[in-house]
C-alpha cells in the first residue's frame, strides 16, 4: 500500500503543477485594459484593422461568416485610432491592447508555438486564416510598407501608422510583393 500512496502523491503533484500554470480570468478582467492617456509629450502610433479583400471575394467566404456582424459593409473593423506607444512595444503589443480596449475578438499563436519565434495572428473579429479561400490570412503594414518581420519582432517608432489588412491571395491583393519574392520593387 505504500506504493499506492506514492502514486497518488505523484498524481496530485502533476495536477497541482497544471493548475498553478493556468490563469483563469473572467471576461471583465480580460477586457479591463489600462490605456495610457495621450499627453502632448507621449509617443503614439495609429492602428487600423481592415478587411476590404473579403468584400471583393465574398463568394469565397465561409458561409457561416456571411453577415454584417463579422464582415462590416465598409470593411472597417477598427477605424484608425491613436494609441500610446510604450517603451519596447511591438506591433503585436499594440494590436493586443487595441483589440482588448475595443472588445474585438482576436486569436493568435504564441511566439513559442511556431518555428519563426514570432506571434502569428490566426484571426481577428472571427475572420480566421483560410476563412476566405486557401490563400487568406492577416498581414500588417507600417507606414504603407510590409515589414518582413513577425508582428512581435517589429518595434514601431513614434508616429508610425500600423494597418492590419486581410488578404485573400497571399498578400497580392493588399499590394504586398515579398511573398512572391519581389521584395524591394
Amino acid at each position, binding site marked *: *500500500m505504500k*506504493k499506492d500512496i506514492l502514486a497518488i502523491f505523484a498524481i496530485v503533484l502533476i495536477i497541482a503543477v497544471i493548475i498553478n500554470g493556468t490563469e483563469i*480570468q473572467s*471576461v471583465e478582467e480580460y477586457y479591463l485594459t489600462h490605456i495610457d492617456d495621450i499627453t502632448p509629450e507621449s509617443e503614439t502610433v495609429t492602428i487600423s484593422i481592415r478587411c476590404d479583400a473579403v468584400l471583393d471575394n465574398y463568394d469565397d467566404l465561409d458561409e*457561416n461568416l456571411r453577415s454584417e456582424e463579422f464582415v462590416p459593409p465598409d470593411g472597417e473593423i477598427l477605424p484608425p485610432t491613436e494609441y500610446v506607444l510604450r517603451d519596447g512595444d511591438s506591433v503585436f503589443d499594440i494590436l493586443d491592447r487595441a483589440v482588448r480596449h475595443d472588445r474585438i*475578438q482576436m*486569436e493568435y499563436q504564441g511566439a513559442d508555438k511556431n518555428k519563426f519565434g514570432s506571434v502569428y495572428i490566426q484571426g481577428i473579429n472571427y475572420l480566421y486564416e483560410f476563412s476566405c479561400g486557401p490563400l487568406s490570412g492577416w498581414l500588417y503594414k507600417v507606414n504603407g510598407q510590409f515589414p518582413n518581420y513577425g508582428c512581435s519582432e517589429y518595434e514601431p517608432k513614434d508616429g508610425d501608422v500600423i494597418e492590419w489588412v486581410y488578404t485573400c491571395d497571399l498578400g497580392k491583393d493588399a499590394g504586398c510583393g515579398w511573398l512572391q519574392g519581389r521584395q524591394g520593387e
Partner: protein
Amino acid sequence: MKAFDEIDPVAAAVYFVSVMLVGMFISAPMIQLFSLLGAAAFCLIGGRGEIKSDLGFYIPMFIMIALINPLFSHNGVTPLFFLNGNPVTLEAVIYGIVLAVMMTGILLWCRNFTKVMTSDKLLYIMGRAVPALSLTVSMALRFVPMFKRQMKKVSAAQKGMGLYSSKSYTDRIRGALRVFAAMVSWSLENAMETSCAMKARGYGLKGRTNFAIFRFTLRDCIFTVTTLLLLAAVIGGYALGYIDFYYYPRISAADINAGSAAVYVSFAVMAFLPFMIEVKEALKWKYFVSKI
C-alpha cells in the same frame, strides 16, 4: 436468435454503412441525437453486450471529449472566461458536446456492427472479390473480443501462480502490464497461425467453392430499398441546405421548416429501423406464445 441477425449480410452492411456515413459527416445536432439514441436503443434491445458495465467507459469518454474541445478551440462570440489569455467560449463547449455525442454514437454503431456482422458474414460478402482484405478485416474485427478473452485467461493463470495478487493498485497495474506484454506476442503468433491455416485450406485459390446459408429474400430487398430511400432523402436534404447548421462563430438558429423536418424524420426512422425490427419480432413472438 435476434431478428436483425437474420437479415442478409449485404442488406445489413448497406444499412450500417449508410447510417454511419450520415452520423460521421453531418454534424447537425438533431441528426447526432437520433444517431446516438438509435444506436443505444439497438444495443439495449438486442442485449448486445453489457452496455451497463460499459457506461464506465462511455461516460468518462463523453466528458473528456466535451471538455477538450473548448480548451483547444477558441472561436465563438460568447466567451465564458479566459484561460491563459485565451477565451473558453460557449460555442466551443456546445460543439464539444455535439462532438462527444457523435463519437459515442459512432462507437455504439461500430459495436452493433461487430455484433451483427460476424466473421462468416464478412467473408461471405467480400470473400470472393477481395479474399486477402476480407480475411484481414474479419481478423481485425474479432481481434479485440478475442484479446479480451485471452487476457482474462492469462491473468487468471498469473493469479493462480500467486503473482501480483496484492491489493495495491501499483502492483495491479504492473501485473496488467506484464499480462499485456505476453498478450502482444501471443496475438502476433495467433494472427500468423490463422493465416497459415487459411492458406493450408486453400483459401482464396481459384476454383475453390464456398457454401453459405444466406439467401437474399423479399424482406431483405424491402429493407435495403427502404434504407437507400431514407439515405437519399437525408443526403438530398443536406445537399439542398435544409439542415445547414453552424457552430462557429455564432450558433445558427435552429430552422425548423417542412424540408428540415422531413430530413430529421427520415433519419430518425433510419436510425431506429433495427430497433423497430427487433420490437416487431419480439411482439410477434409474444403473440404466438400467447396463442399456445
